[in-house]
């Protein structure tokens, strides 16, 4: 009975759209308009009148405390949870009238529990959606190899293994590879790195950023870790109860100008330091070089520069480019100056992302 839904006429009218968006592997826009979710028997809505537009190729972080409705909001986009009200459009097309199973095959989905199928090999796990989409065996095999390499798992070594033979970090990479299998333009990620240890998480985050720079998907990424949001997000939506948007902006602007008390409390201590981490030395005004000062590269952030100043006790550090040519120096005073009138600089930094 549930199988029959895939054959309903409504689907065939949408396959055109779905194949159209799957051509756009570089990401498509997502619009949520007045979306609500009310569970029967509960007086308060879990998500109340949520509206947002996400640009193609943007990585948007939903941050908020547990139970604020951020996951519910995300899961309405692939209709794991059906909205009670409102409309959701992907690339301008309403998805609520589509067959949910067809829709989900074109949206990557990564969850905290990873959910690799324990009785299938890693290669079979990654091949699930392509198989559902009716790809040929050889095309699936090629894609699996390519993806394993993308997430830095050696196909020779890992393709034939079962999930339980992998470490947590390796499993999460396989999970990401599986979500990318059919090259969906949209990815939904629900605390994907939440269950890994701090070192693995840091590594996975860095890899994920590199990957996103390559693939440019439209990604909604749910986390309760504000530092993760700053590190990964193009824009961050800080959410409170019933998934109310307290602020929706770039990490730099949220750090510099928190909209209200709630957002400030979420940022926590050390907002200035977090801002420094977002500003690369390339965007900081440099002073003339100082002889014998410790060196730092142009790709590092102001936070790294400050770190070196504190560690070495030097008055200034020299900034060098990739060819080890000294470009100038930076001091405590110049870092403060950047922070104090830094808004334009920080914006410029954001603009280049």
């Amino acid at each position, binding site marked *: 009975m549930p199988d029959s839904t895939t054959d309903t006429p409504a689907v065939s009218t949408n396959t055109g759209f779905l194949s159209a968006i799957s051509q756009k592997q570089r990401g498509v826009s997502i619009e949520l308009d007045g979306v609500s979710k009310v569970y029967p028997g509960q007086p308060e809505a879990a998500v109340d009148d949520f509206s947002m537009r996400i640009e193609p190729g943007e990585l948007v972080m939903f941050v908020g405390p547990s139970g604020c409705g951020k996951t519910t909001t995300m899961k309405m986009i692939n209709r794991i949870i059906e909205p009670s009200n409102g409309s959701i459009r992907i690339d301008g097309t309403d998805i609520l009238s589509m067959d949910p199973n067809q829709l989900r095959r074109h949206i990557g*989905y990564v969850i905290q529990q990873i*959910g690799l199928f324990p009785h299938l090999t890693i290669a079979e796990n990654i091949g699930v959606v392509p198989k559902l989409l009716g790809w040929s065996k050889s095309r699936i095999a090629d894609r699996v190899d390519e993806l394993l390499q993308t997430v830095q798992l050696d196909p020779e070594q890992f393709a034939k293994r079962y999930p339980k033979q992998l470490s947590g970090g390796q499993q999460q990479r396989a999970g990401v590879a599986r979500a990318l299998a059919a090259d969906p333009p949209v990815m939904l990620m629900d605390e994907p790195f939440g269950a890994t240890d701090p070192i693995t998480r840091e590594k996975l985050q860095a890899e994920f950023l590199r990957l996103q720079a390559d693939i440019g998907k439209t990604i909604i990424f749910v986390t309760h870790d504000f530092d993760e949001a700053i590190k990964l997000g193009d824009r961050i939506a800080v959410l409170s109860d019933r998934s109310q948007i307290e602020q929706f902006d770039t990490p730099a602007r949220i750090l510099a100008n928190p909209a209200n008390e709630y957002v400030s409390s979420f940022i926590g201590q050390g907002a200035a330091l977090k801002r420094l981490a977002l500003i690369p030395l390339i965007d900081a005004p440099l002073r003339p070089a100082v002889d014998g000062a410790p060196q730092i590269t142009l790709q590092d952030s102001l936070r790294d520069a400050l770190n070196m100043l504190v560690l070495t006790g030097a008055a200034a550090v020299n900034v060098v480019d990739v060819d080890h040519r000294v470009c100038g120096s930076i001091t405590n005073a110049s870092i403060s100056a950047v922070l104090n009138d830094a808004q334009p600089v920080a914006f410029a930094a954001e603009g280049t992302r």
Partner: protein
Amino acid sequence: MSIVTETEVSLVDDLKAVPDGSGRRRYGRLARIAAAPVVVGFVLLATYLWIASMQLDSIEKRTLNADYLFARISEHLVLTVAASALVAILAIPAGIAVYRSRSKVVHTVAFGLANIGQATPAVGVVILLAIVWQTGFATALVALVAYSFLPVLRNTLIGLEQVDAGVKEAARGMGMTYSQVLRRIELPLASPVILAGLRTALVFCVSVATIATFINAGGLGDMIVNGLKLQRFPVLFVGAILVAAIAVLIDWIAGLVEEFVKPRGL
């Protein structure tokens, strides 16, 4: 059942790919696997030698000969296997239906009935059915199915319920339909628990099939009852030993099958 068979096929291929554990572990496993048939073989041999050394009277001779024994054993096995197969055909889909309905009422009714089936003494069921319906094989079959329905129903439900919620959500999130999730994910992952239920049912059937004799459905119960009635201890003893041996061996075979068809990677 067809679903489980599907997994079996792919699993057989996979078995070759992954090498076994250390030598010592394999040794221990071999000992565990060989233990049951060795013990049964020893007991059967001892029984045979004991009977062979005895002077049998004409009544005992009528029972303790190869033709008679094989006939009873095959009746017993046919009854057991037929009942277990029926239970598999009925109870596994029933378990799936209960799981899928997610309704308290359906759950309560199904388990209520299965509980009654198992709680009611099988002798009572057999005799009642014989009175209101008929004697013979069919009646014995119904009684056995009623008696061994519960473990399979219960294990099917538990097996499906214990599949990790993250795995189920990932499957749904990837765009599998409900029946694809069931066939490709839930049933293969539940299969070890379902098979364990079937194994229990098989062993139940072997022991309960002895009462088929009361309604003229044959089996090794004939020997036990005759041995008691005619006070021929060797007949009673051989009947009992054979039932026990069959139960142990069937459990052993089912264990091997379980081991063999268990999905790789679990």
